[in-house]
């Protein structure tokens, strides 16, 4: 199956990539998608995961056509 991967903010910069289409076997979790997309880098513990724009965790299964996003802790409230 194919999933759409997205990276944001400092994670995007560190990986030098804002996303990719990833081909992966029929049974896979978000963590598997991360490994495939990053060429086997380990997933930092503070990275947040969203599938189809909803928060979830890395152990969640993905389906064909899903959008899988990885990003650092959000910083929307610096006042």
């Amino acid at each position, binding site marked *: 199956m194919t999933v759409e991967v997205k990276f944001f*903010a400092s994670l995007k910069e560190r990986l030098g990539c804002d996303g990719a289409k990833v081909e992966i076997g029929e049974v896979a979790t978000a963590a598997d998608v991360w490994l495939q997309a990053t060429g086997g880098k380990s997933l930092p513990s503070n990275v947040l995961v969203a599938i189809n724009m909803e928060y979830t965790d890395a152990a969640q299964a993905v389906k064909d056509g899903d959008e899988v*996003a990885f*990003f650092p802790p959000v910083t929307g409230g610096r006042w």
Partner: protein
Amino acid sequence: MRVELRSGAFQPWAELAEYERAAQLGTGVGATATFVGTMRDYNEGEPVLGMYLEHYPGMAERELSALVAAEVARFQLIDALVVHRVGALAPGDPIVLVAVWSGHRREGFEGCRAIMEALKARAPFWKRERTVGGERWVEKNTAGY
């Protein structure tokens, strides 16, 4: 209820006047509580020259709408408005406006604050500050309570 992302500068008080004119909330409203978060020119003792606010298009709107709807239900608010900047900002620019309308002041104060805290904790925004020393991602939030 309205949740909106803006790529250009906005004037919070003009937004509120216009929203109230259009929404016709009626005379059941006894309390209006608002919060405006503004870009400061200092952070941790260092002057900040500018800021870029990255967001996750689609998810930011979706998450904001969901969290506003949840607090509207929890505090039985009559209405709520959120306007949030994205992209490049200058010191002094309003970044976020949260406004809630309620029957009584308790729900108004608490609902407005709860939306701000949920926004801070969940909405997919990331701040990159520009200082004389270069650019840096803001890595953590400040405490709200």
